[in-house]
């Protein structure tokens, strides 16, 4: 469109600014990649050298030997995040529907209570949370990392999904309802299919939250090496004498690659979905 046309100078300015922005965003990744290719001797050479002719992918094969459980850690991260997402959605969908559609006593107040959970993080409640986990016999299991993750993601999930459900035309539900369908049947067979795009966006956001914050609960509530997620497992590259920086970076990059690739492609739907959903009001 004519309105969107830029002069050459404007274009150069925009690209330069984007380049600067992306440099800031991607610099740590570039440096992690460069480090993963460097032999340890290069990393510790003085003066500082960016590139050497002895770069190789050696660390990418050494890392599996140095930390035999690495594959397990990568898998654990994905598994924990997936479980957190599924369980969170099971709690979020009915609650979000209630807030989007129904009138009931203490509606605003109970929603306020949910949203105020956002003010706490695991770090504030760690001691009593530890005791709760111990009472429920969940310490040193996957659940020790899944259960608190779910609790802290439910509020955001309800808030986001409510925005979508409010946008689904009421008439369809009322038609089903008048036809004698039960409320639960209407929710399952009419509302949820229509809300699929919203469910995907909310599920994706929850997954990102669950994947991003696995460190604290893992190092506090779980001592079993086989169950650790990747961020905690990377500690094993830190030895008594030296830190195997190149292997640690190689392992970190390899570990996040599968999830990152999925999200890079989901980004388009995420942005489109955020537009359609909660962001509007």
């Amino acid at each position: 469109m004519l309105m969107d046309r830029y002069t050459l100078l404007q274009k150069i300015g925009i690209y330069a600014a984007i380049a600067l922005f992306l440099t800031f965003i991607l610099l740590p990744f570039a440096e992690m990649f460069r480090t993963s290719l460097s032999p340890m001797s290069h990393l510790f050479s003085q003066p500082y050298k960016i590139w050497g002719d002895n770069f190789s992918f050696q660390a990418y094969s050494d890392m599996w030997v140095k930390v035999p459980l690495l594959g397990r850690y990568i898998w654990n991260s994905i598994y924990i995040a997936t479980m957190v997402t599924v369980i969170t959605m099971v709690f979020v969908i009915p609650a979000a529907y209630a807030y989007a559609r129904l009138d009931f006593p203490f509606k605003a107040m109970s929603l306020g209570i949910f949203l105020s959970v956002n003010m706490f993080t695991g770090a504030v409640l760690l001691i009593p949370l530890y005791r709760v986990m111990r009472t429920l016999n969940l310490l040193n299991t996957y659940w020790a990392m899944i259960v608190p993750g779910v609790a802290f993601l439910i509020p955001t999930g309800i808030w986001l999904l409510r925005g979508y459900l409010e946008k689904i035309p009421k008439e369809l539900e009322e038609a089903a309802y008048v036809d004698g369908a039960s409320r639960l049947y209407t929710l399952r067979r009419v509302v949820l299919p229509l809300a699929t795009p919203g469910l995907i966006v909310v599920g994706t956001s929850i997954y990102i939250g669950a994947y991003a914050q696995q460190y604290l609960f893992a190092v506090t509530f779980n001592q079993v090496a086989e169950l650790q997620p990747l961020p905690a497992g990377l500690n094993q590259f830190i030895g008594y004498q030296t830190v195997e920086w190149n292997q640690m970076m190689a392992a970190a990059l390899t570990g996040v690659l599968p999830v990152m690739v999925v999200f890079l492609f989901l980004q388009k739907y995420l942005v489109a979905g955020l537009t359609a959903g909660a962001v509007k009001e």
Partner: protein
Amino acid sequence: MADVTSTAAPAAAKASRKGLSEGWFAWALIAPALVFIGVIVAWPLVETVRLSFTDADLGGENWVGLANYEKMLSGAKFFEIVGRTFFWMVLSVGLKLIVGLIGATLLNAAVPGRALFRMMIMPPWVIPIAIGCIGWLWLYNGQFGFLSGMSQRLGLLDGPFEFLAYKNSAFYSAIVTDVWVGTPMVSLFFLAAMQGVNRDLYEAAWVDGAGRWYRFRRITIPQIMPVIVSMALLSAIWTFNSFEIIYILTQGGPRGGTTTMIIDTYKTAIGNYKFGEGAARAVAIVVILGVFSLLYLKVLDRVNKHYGVK
């Protein structure tokens, strides 16, 4: 439906069904989530309040009344930490919003390659925070890190500089990392909001001869203001409670230079096993954030009214 003789009956049944059960049905839908949060968040919160009145440690606990609070409030250190926490929050959130807004505007510009650029800002958001922090830890390394090394090569520094070894540089380094972690999400939310703005508004202004900057200032900003304001609150709460970034980079050091309230709480309770004193600090965080959020929501309400959002 075909039964003509009893048209009134279904309507009446519907009304009674609705009137009797809507409230119960709603609560049945909410109850699982509420109970879950009750056990995992609310109960520990109540426990935290109780512990704050005890001298709980690994050995046991005795009721000590307000002693923990008196001790906490009597030292100058606590207020220094509160001040630092607010400075941390305001600076970091401000930068996230500004950088995020600039980023969103750039990513919204109609230039070739836009779809690719939008993908490229995702990584800091979707990887585990702890892993991003490891990357920054290495960047900040004075002997072998990129920032110190490059600065020496370019002649900006005479010798190695340990970014995380001095109070001020450690604080601002942690801010940069926090902004790096938080900006992509802020950018994408702003971008989504910008795309939700009705194009007719821009076209009308364009026809009237309004320039880009004018359109940005007078259409984009007011239209996405509700998103900016609610994002600011969420971001402020998260930044206030930002734990992993500071803990992995500096553990609150050097000499307390990056100790915010959440780090102080963690170190008191977990590091020194003073559960009671730690709990008092946790309560302080909750009270401060609660008051802050209420004040903010008042402002939000006014902003929404001002911009005509229901």
